[in-house]
């Protein structure tokens, strides 16, 4: 089961995403931004970071990279794609998901253990969760405020395209507490929090049981592996 992890200049969490894939039992294929070949992967992860320094607009330059042309085509053909944080911003800039992400309402970068509610489990990346499940995933961003026009919001809410909502605290002023989205087909998912930082006991968020023991993020990666195996 081969999962591609893309590295753009300025990508930061690529090695973390690769580790998450390995822990989930997948095989990692490193994808380079300038190489349009997807090397026959079964799914793709766009990791977090500051691709191209976040210059122009977060994710805007990365969305023009050669590898993205292939990913957009493949995603439209059903290839599972997960965009995490900057990867979510790239998905939005690539029009694989609607809306936009702007500076956090409070103007500061924020790093915190964030509670989320899983709003949709009919996707390649969330099928291992229970509907309405509360999970804890680290969040770290400066430009994570989700916005969309009213019509888009109505469609997102009406068609069940919201994958995750922030619970208890809205950390960045996102409309309707939106933390993550899915596309209609359910193969493309993007979210601001970082599931790859909650996959290994000892290095994840604190839980009531023990410090840094949270591994709720692992389900993203096992979900896609299960889906690929079953299809």
């Amino acid at each position, binding site marked *: 089961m081969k999962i591609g992890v893309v590295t753009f*200049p300025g990508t930061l969490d690529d090695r973390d995403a690769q*580790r998450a894939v390995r822990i989930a039992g997948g095989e990692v294929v490193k994808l380079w931004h300038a190489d349009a070949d997807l090397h026959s992967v079964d799914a793709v992860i766009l990791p977090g970071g500051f691709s191209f320094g976040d210059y122009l607009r977060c994710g805007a330059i990365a969305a023009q990279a050669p590898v993205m042309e292939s990913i957009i085509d493949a995603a439209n053909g059903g290839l599972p794609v997960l965009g995490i944080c900057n990867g979510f911003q790239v998905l939005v800039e690539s029009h694989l998901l609607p809306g936009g992400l702007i500076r956090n309402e409070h103007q500061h*970068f924020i790093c915190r253990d964030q509670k989320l509610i899983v709003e949709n489990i009919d996707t390649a990346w969330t099928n291992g969760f229970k509907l309405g499940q509360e999970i804890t995933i680290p969040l770290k961003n*400066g430009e994570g405020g989700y916005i969309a026009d009213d019509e888009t919001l109505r469609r997102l809410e009406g068609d069940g395209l919201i994958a995750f909502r922030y619970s208890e605290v809205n950390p960045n002023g996102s409309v309707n507490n939106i933390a993550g989205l899915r596309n209609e087909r359910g193969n493309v998912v993007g979210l601001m929090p970082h599931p790859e*930082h909650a996959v290994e006991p000892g290095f994840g968020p604190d839980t009531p049981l023990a410090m840094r023991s949270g591994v709720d993020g692992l389900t993203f990666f096992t979900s896609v592996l299960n889906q690929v195996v079953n299809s």
Partner: protein
Amino acid sequence: MVKQVSTVDTTKNAKNTPDKEQPWRELGLKQEEYDRIKLILDRRPTSAELAMYSVMWSEHCSYKSSKIYLRQFGEKVTDEMKKNLMVGMGENAGVVDIGEGWAVTFKVESHNHPSYIEPFQGAATGVGGIVRDILTMGARPIAVMDQLRFGAVANPDTARVVNGVVSGISFYGNCLGLPNIGGETVFDKVYQGNPLVNALSVGALRHEDLKLAKASNPGDLVILFGARTGADGIGGVSVLASETFDADGPSRRPAVQVGDPFAEKVLIECCLELYAAQVVAGIQDLGGAGLSCATSELASNGRAGMRVQLKEVLLRDESLTPEEILMSESQERMMAIVPKKDLKAFTAIVNKYEVEFSVLGEVIREPRLYINWGKEEIVNVPPRSVAHDGPVYERPVAYPAWLDNLNNNSVNHAQLRRATNPSELAEQLIQIVSSPNQASKSWITDQYDHYVGGNTALAMPDDSGMVRVSEETGLGVAIATDANGRYCQLDPYNGAKLALAESYRNVASSGAVPMAVTNCLNFGSPENPEVMWQFKQATAGLADGCLELGIPVTGGNVSFYNQTGDVAIYPTPVVGVLGVIDDVARRIPSGWQDAGNNIYLLGITRDELDGSVWSEVIHDHLGGKPPVVDLAAEKALAELLQGASLQGLLASTHDLSEGGLAQTLVESTLRFGMGARVWLNEITERDQVDLTAALFSESTARVIVSVGREDDVKFVGLCEARTVPVLRIGVTDASGQLEIQDLATWSIEELKNTHGATIPELFG
């Protein structure tokens, strides 16, 4: 028609015009230093040479006032202390063997002066600079920390500096993808015009990947790569970092560099790939003193010379003069020494990362640095005279005239009033834990990414930061830093030792074995004999302390001229200790994790309130002598914690320092929201102290630990066998509150709000 005449000051021109007036004074040189340059060159320097000498002989680069004292870090060492040291002081950063074929390199550096003038860029480029030092050793940087000192919270300018510095660190560090695992934030009016922004970085490498900054093989190419050279940071080290600010002097913002963390992140990955491909024979980062430093140091370290064509430097601004190019401190640049046969492979890698480079020249056998501007020779110097044989001063020292009075004015002498009833004590506890220096710093640390990399085992608010180095075995390192300026003002010798003792204790508290020391010595003007005396005392204290603990200093940094007018900061020697842990899974957090554990206080409490947080917050007082340092007791305590941790007996450990037991109890409660019931009567009885001392004394060599009931006998037996004083002072519980018997009970929610609200209210 007027004939075009070259305006460049060539070496030939220098010979022909020996009496030309030169701006050596404006560049920060003294008369005797200028005379010495003339003696070395047997002529006056060219303007380019003058630029090079002025930056390289600045206090910041040459350590001319501190050198004679820093030597003792290399002298007061035993063979045992050196056994794990792969690279000692003098290189970009020290390197320590941590076993399993792994080594780590770490260092802390100051960026104080730029951070006052332009807080955002000053702090940002401070992070960038220290990370490049670590990268230069051949290591992958794996974490950063920062040690910050700001002015009084009530001063309106403090918010400008705090917001700028914190955003600068957040902007640069987060974008580099390095977890920020801890640090310090202190407010005191003595730092009002001289905030301290120190940045620490740690990197990991395999033994065989070690790189050194030297150019030794004639014929190898000298390559400058990374960002283009611009007009930023010109004279940063000589104009900013080596002079005292005048309150009404000119703005020096143009001397501050401007950072681009994206360029640095790309540079890090590019360099690591160059190292892996083994196409680099020597490497040096460009920081303070820019090209002047990189060329002269590489050649001097390699006992060789260099021929450089300055017109090959890629510029952001074509109007730069050769002198400005030599002095520019533009960030995100590196210089590599590359064998000719490897140029093709080198080019392929830098092209992959779309990093610009240019070949400036080559290494030559003759130990001489020749720099040309086109066809004209503008520099012709022995590189060693620039980089290593700068002036060394034995500056006058004088015992401070005011010190005896300060030392005599102890807490008891001043008859500071102590609380007489429980409710007053309880009120003082709340006042202390909500004071700006003792309050939660999460408003700051939440702006830093501590997850990236996936190897962070401990981060703030735990006693030390810890990162995994080997994913296979769990081998990792822990780092803690400390400095208490108030203690150092009272007694710089013991103040430095106290900083060492606390960092050492913090590392030991995490379960790691302390192994090496770095420092950043922040002081006032070395031209003031009283400041020089403080420096002399502090360095002696630190060196003696390291010898006693058996851990070597591997490197560090000196920042002088932290004063406004005649008023110097408190001596602030930041001491960082690095420890090793064989498996980070064994790490110990600072807070109580489970209900029903016993809480033990290890160590003896004395009536030591001079210089304490209690004296500052409750009485706005500073006087007397700091707490006694007992490094033998610190060592015994560290060894006990090590033993207990290996047997898995410790659920938590938290050291006692600023704010005493009171502060530690509150932090231990809040770490995981686990409550406790604590009693003080056995402390007051055994140690013969009153309740104020029991709660707020800052006696050293103390920690509290929580231990599961099933491990009690074993743990107490261990303490007794190692003769570490142990007293059971409480029990953890799921009550949702902290109860100090016969004093007060607080709900955890209430403590959390009190401890957490201060900083966001001031700066949020």
